[in-house]
């Protein structure tokens, strides 16, 4: 190591020790992003911002929240919502951001799928991203329990029940998760710990991993063109900014992100102030009551599609109970997106509109997830059950067909 003689207490000395300028270059001014992008490329920064909102509002809520079944409901609905200055604002921001963050995650995810940004060197970006989806889901579920309303309690009861594995009857596991035979105080305090400590810690770690996996392979672009970053960066640095196919992360890429953020903030804060019921279900303003099951139990909207795959198979078949089949499909639905890069057999990186069969697959998948989401909320009666069953079957079929469809596209293009 080169010994540093400049004083520790000088700007120059500090720079020598920390190499801030170099770090700034690597992370900001010479972190190259393709120029050919649209506003969907801003979703990462929108997500990072929304996550920051969740952390900051969460810290304020944490100052008054009481993780105790006797106190939790009133600490949220009386103390925070009515007594603490702007407590209502922080709670609305937290509740709505928790919902909106999933909307952006889905957009971010399907942007990646559409433009093929998960393969040929970008697999780790995809996998770390899906890890974030899973950890955010756990964070959302654990947080939903904290106000200790009716939906908090019953969602906790229903979801922890799933760990019994249907006919496996692994009740020991369920009790271990709950800290008791039923959902109660021990359940609330441990999910409180998970929500405010362990899961956020893991999320922050995985976000760092996600950024790291992104830094070297670079992000994809609208035409999925393979860019020679060194050559294009040279052009840019030489002043041929208009010719170069790349832009630096700061200030060029981020200036666009901020512009998108401006629009996003208007949308988000409109929801915070004027339209929040979708994220803060009215039923959850009834205090938890283990003796009174709500008429309809449903998860938050972002879990509805996978919840519907759980309910989809409503009759016994293939010698298995309906509930067991549903549970298996549900478990599969939680993890199947992780292996997307390996189910796609097309060797080329191309946007979906350049892969005709995959293009159709993509939009059918979107429509199927929409149908699953809507029917996941409706009471499973009559024709609703049938729609759920068909949509669940289609969901499975889509995954089975993915390798064949992507291969067929490649063959038609002559790439295989």
């Amino acid at each position: 190591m080169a010994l540093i003689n400049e004083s520790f207490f000088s700007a120059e000395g500090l720079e020598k020790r920390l190499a801030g300028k170099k770090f700034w270059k690597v992370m900001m001014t010479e972190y190259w992003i393709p120029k050919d992008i649209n506003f969907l490329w801003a979703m990462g920064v929108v997500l990072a911002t929304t996550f920051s909102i969740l952390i900051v509002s969460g810290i304020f809520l944490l100052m008054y929240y009481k993780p105790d079944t006797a106190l939790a409901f009133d600490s949220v609905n009386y103390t925070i919502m009515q007594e603490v200055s702007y407590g209502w604002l922080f709670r609305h921001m937290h509740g709505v951001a928790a919902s909106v963050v999933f909307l952006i995650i889905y957009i971010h995810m399907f942007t990646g799928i559409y433009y093929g940004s998960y393969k040929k060197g970008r697999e780790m970006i995809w996998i770390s991203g899906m890890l974030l989806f899973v950890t955010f889901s756990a964070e959302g579920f654990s947080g939903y329990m904290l106000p200790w309303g009716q939906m908090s309690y019953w969602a906790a009861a229903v979801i922890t029940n799933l760990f019994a594995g249907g006919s496996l009857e692994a009740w020991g596991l369920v009790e271990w998760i709950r800290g008791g035979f039923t959902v109660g105080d021990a359940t609330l305090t441990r999910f409180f710990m998970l929500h405010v400590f362990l899961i956020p810690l893991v999320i922050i770690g995985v976000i760092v991993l996600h950024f790291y996996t992104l830094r070297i392979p670079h992000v994809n672009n609208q035409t999925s063109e393979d860019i020679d970053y060194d050559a294009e960066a040279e052009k840019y640095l030489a002043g041929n900014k208009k010719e170069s196919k790349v832009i630096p992360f700061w200030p060029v890429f981020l200036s666009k992100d901020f512009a998108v953020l401006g629009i996003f903030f208007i949308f988000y804060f409109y929801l915070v102030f004027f339209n929040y019921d979708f994220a803060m279900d009215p039923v959850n303003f009834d205090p938890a009551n283990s003796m009174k099951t709500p008429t309809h139990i449903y998860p938050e909207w972002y879990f509805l599609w996978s919840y519907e795959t759980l309910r989809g198979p409503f009759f016994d078949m293939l010698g298995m109970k309906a509930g067991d089949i549903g549970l298996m499909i549900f478990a599969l639905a939680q993890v199947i997106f992780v292996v997307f890069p390996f189910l796609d057999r097309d060797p080329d990186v191309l946007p979906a509109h350049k892969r005709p069969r995959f293009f159709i697959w993509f939009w059918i998948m979107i429509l199927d997830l929409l149908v699953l989401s809507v029917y996941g909320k409706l009471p499973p009666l009559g024709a609703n059950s049938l729609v759920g069953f068909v949509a669940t079957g289609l969901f499975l079929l889509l995954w089975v067909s993915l390798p064949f469809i992507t291969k067929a596209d490649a063959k038609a293009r002559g790439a295989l």
Partner: protein
Amino acid sequence: MRELKVLAILVFFTGILYWGVEPYAHSQMHKHVEPADFTFSDIKDVRDGKVGNVAAGKSLIVDQFQCQSCHSMTVDGKKIGASMNLGVVTPDLTTAGLIYNEKFLAAFIANPAKASHVAHKMVDGKTHPMTSFDLNYDGTFGDDDAQGVADIVAFLKSIAPKEITNKEAFSAACQRCHGAKYGDFRFDGTKSSMSAKTPDASILKYMGTIPPDLSQMIRSRGHEYLEEFINEPAKHLEGTAMPRVGLNQEAQEQVVAYLEEIGDSSKDKRAELGPKFLGYLVIFALFAWLWKAKIWRHIH
């Protein structure tokens, strides 16, 4: 332009999703009922055209103890009678003439179980703690009873205050069975002045259930549901133990207003801060776009 096309697709699918899981799903999950009927058109006016006489009503109540043996009320500044726990604490009648629909009040005096739609609960020897009005004990509701009811209603209207606070309306109409602890929240666990007046044990025996605290009903049920429900509980909850209360429109609005005051006290602050917040963000977005345009001018 491609960006706008992408945005249109995004807005379209997000809109469909929102519509499906919110307005559409809720329209499928919740029963549609007729709006609140403050004319109580299903109730026949038992007074049958008889004109009430205040003095005669006063005589019935004050001198003949028709009501004050079980009910308290303030007459000429003096409190008479006493409330008692007959399974549920009996109401003070001072405000009855102000908060109840007149026709409902008359029908209730004539036959409480029938008017309040709890006749289905009065089985297996159970009877409504308040007896049906029958002046000459002949077992029928005759002309004399119709005149008596008209007189009592006229008298109750004469002693009622001209106006009461939202809290008083809530207290008179709901608090015998329901608490609203956020109206007077006690962190130390001492009894709140806004807890139900009837002790839990008696009400459990009387109703078969402990009526819920109403502190958060404004958030959990919302205006529309509360308006329909308070006017006629059976519309939304068939077979409910809750009686029809018979509030007139003004009193019911006061009750809902009280629930909003204690259950959603930040509503006004939300309404005030929201537009300012959004206004600021529009300015922020404008400057962000201008800055973006300035930087990207050298790029394209």
